[in-house]
């Protein structure tokens, strides 16, 4: 792929907003308006609310990330399922299940489950914490890498649900009374909450903040901000 940016577009281009839903580009009518935090501009084509930046993005991201990190403890400590096999009860934690798969010789499976249940949630919590922190405190640090990290967690975020579905299917299928059965453990609920909270955190974070100058007012989405630098048009084929 070759990078061949086109010459800059008209430097007199007004501040623009792209619609998240339909893609239509509108002029930011509220740019510089003192009541920006309270007024709302909607897309003229589809009616979707237009934001320069997602409102309260950093605060909401932190809230979801911290909640997910806290719940990640019970998700790992408490059993996610209890198996009963000929009257013998056995409790399984997330890590226990992975280690057991490894010990049984199912290395491939244990790696898949490790990635989905341990690596992806930890990556999401760590990356979102890093993105939220750097957007305020180190705005110029490795912007492109941070943008790529965000796209990575956006793409792999769903996969941490894997273990939740596995337990649901096992518990629904293995119903042989006292002979064999699977019950859902309290750890699964905590783990499911971690998955949902990290998804909320991903959607709460505004990746456009990575390219801002770290102005907290802009990150709050409450005060006026005018894009002064000319926007450049370009295309990479």
């Amino acid at each position, binding site marked *: 792929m070759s990078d061949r940016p086109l010459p800059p577009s008209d430097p007199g281009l007004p501040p623009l907003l792209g619609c998240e*839903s339909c893609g239509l*580009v509108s002029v930011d009518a509220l740019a510089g308006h003192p009541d920006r935090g309270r007024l709302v501009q909607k897309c003229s084509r589809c009616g979707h609310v237009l934001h320069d930046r997602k409102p309260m993005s950093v605060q909401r991201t932190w809230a979801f990330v911290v909640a997910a990190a806290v719940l990640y403890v019970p998700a790992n400590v408490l059993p996610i399922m209890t198996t009963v096999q000929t009257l013998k009860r056995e409790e399984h934690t997330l890590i226990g299940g992975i280690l057991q798969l490894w010990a049984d010789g199912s290395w491939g*499976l244990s790696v898949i489950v490790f990635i989905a249940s341990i690596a992806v949630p930890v990556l999401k919590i760590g990356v979102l914490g890093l993105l939220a922190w750097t957007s305020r405190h180190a705005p110029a640090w490795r912007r492109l890498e941070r943008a790529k990290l965000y796209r990575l967690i956006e793409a792999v975020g769903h996969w941490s649900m894997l273990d939740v579905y596995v337990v*649901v299917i096992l518990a629904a299928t293995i119903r042989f009374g006292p002979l064999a059965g699977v019950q859902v453990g309290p750890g699964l609920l905590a783990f499911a909450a971690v998955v949902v909270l990290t998804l909320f955190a991903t959607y709460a974070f505004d990746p456009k903040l990575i390219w801002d100058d770290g102005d907290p007012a802009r990150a709050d989405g409450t005060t006026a901000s005018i894009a002064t630098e000319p926007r450049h048009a370009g*295309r990479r*084929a």
Partner: protein
Amino acid sequence: MSRERDSLVMCGQCGMAHRWRPLVPGSAARCTRCEATLGRGHRLTLPTLLSLTITASVLFLIGLSTDVLSLDMRGVSRATTLPGAISAMWSAGERSVAVLTAITAVIAPALFLGLRLYVLVPLMAGRLPRAFAPCVRLLHQAGRWNMIEVFSIGTLLSLVRLVSLADAMPGPGLLAFGATMILLAAIESAGLKHLWWQVQ
């Protein structure tokens, strides 16, 4: 197809404005600043998209109504469907898990397909469906929470785990969901924004 009102395109990831140019099929336009994909040149045509959506809907309904896996243990057999697994969770008292599974594996994919059918059929006939804008916005959310692909792989994983315990067999539902997952990926790659170009 008119793209006149879309002569500019903003990068959804970083907010950089770019001048839109038609893309050669097979090529992708990337943002010059953050390298996110701005658009692709292999857009599926409306009839192709509609036929893929109909096929995926039929497969999804088959997946919902048939067994995803069955288990035989000392002569006693058990088979599970996706709705059956959700109701088993609900009656076992695990209501949050049941609701979460229902939203991500049933409701979101159903909305993903149902709303597309609702929108695409009138568009094919050259009419604008009622409440087009809210439908497209809801489709955006349905795409975010649809996890049928993770469910399919999760079922496959449970199957592999069960094989060591008892006589486990994949059901037709698992195959149907697997095929649905591939079709949904193809439909999703076409995006939503181009639907608006039909409208003006």
